[in-house]
């Protein structure tokens, strides 16, 4: 048992890592988009757990809330909305160039791995307390992030709000049915 206790962090990491990768592979191989979506949700949760291991409590929560709660619901919603046909497992769910695409992806991965082997990360000691400290007082990760987010990172923060506005406009522009305009080329169920 000592082994488990002493190496608890390592064991946890490897378990989570394996599960994360398994979830990722699931997204690739499940024929049904719903299954793929559930697999993705699983990956998101595992990644959130990894965030917690890295002392990023707020991010872990955001990951579950935004991805698991928000984006995933959106995905499922659209899957349901678009067409029942697409829900059925597809006959050809892979693209025409699938084998070549895997080769391409793996090739790029190998090259990145090469850099990883010969590369050097910046030196650091991994002190979680600094991530919870605001002005010398250790209060918590959320407060610490809030403190920098609303001061130093105010500009990108505001811009991100505009990004969301644009996304909203985009969704409305694409989603709204416009009277008076006709679809050229036929098709569709409008």
């Amino acid at each position, binding site marked *: 048992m000592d082994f488990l206790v002493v190496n608890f962090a390592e064991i946890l990491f490897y378990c989570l890592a394996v599960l994360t990768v398994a979830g990722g592979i699931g997204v690739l191989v499940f024929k049904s*988009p719903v299954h793929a979506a559930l697999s993705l949700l699983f990956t998101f949760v595992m990644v959130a757990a990894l*965030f917690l291991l890295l002392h990023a409590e707020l991010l872990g929560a955001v990951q579950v809330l935004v*991805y698991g709660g928000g984006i995933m619901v959106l995905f499922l919603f659209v899957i349901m909305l678009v067409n029942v046909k697409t829900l059925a497992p597809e006959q050809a769910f892979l693209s025409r160039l699938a084998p070549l695409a895997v080769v391409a992806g793996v090739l790029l991965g190998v090259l990145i791995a090469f850099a990883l082997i010969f590369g050097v990360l*910046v030196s650091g000691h991994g002190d979680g307390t600094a991530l919870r400290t605001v002005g010398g007082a250790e209060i918590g990760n959320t407060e610490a992030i809030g403190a920098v987010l609303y001061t130093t990172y105010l500009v*990108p923060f505001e811009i991100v709000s505009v990004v969301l506005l644009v996304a909203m406009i985009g969704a409305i522009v694409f989603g709204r049915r416009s009277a008076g305009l006709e679809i050229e080329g036929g098709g569709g169920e409008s």
Partner: protein
Amino acid sequence: MIDATHYVVLSLILFCLGLIGVMVRRNFITVLMSLELMFNAVNLNLIAFSFRLSDLAGQVLAIFVITVAAAEAAIGLGLIIALVRLKDTVALDEADVMRG
């Protein structure tokens, strides 16, 4: 002790899975999911480095990435709806009128 390198390797695997997913899946919705996978890989990197450096910048950038990814998903899904209305399909490779 698990150091950042482990996380980077995991993130690399996740990133490549996402990249391959973008290239191999026909369904636009699953392609979108694969894209989310890539963004998650980046976040994993950022947070691992943030911890190693004891620096909050990585976490803040990760928040931005999550938000932007959400916005991207919204636009992607909007495009899917428009595509379905036009062509009655979600297969990405059937959008191939223009080429050459």
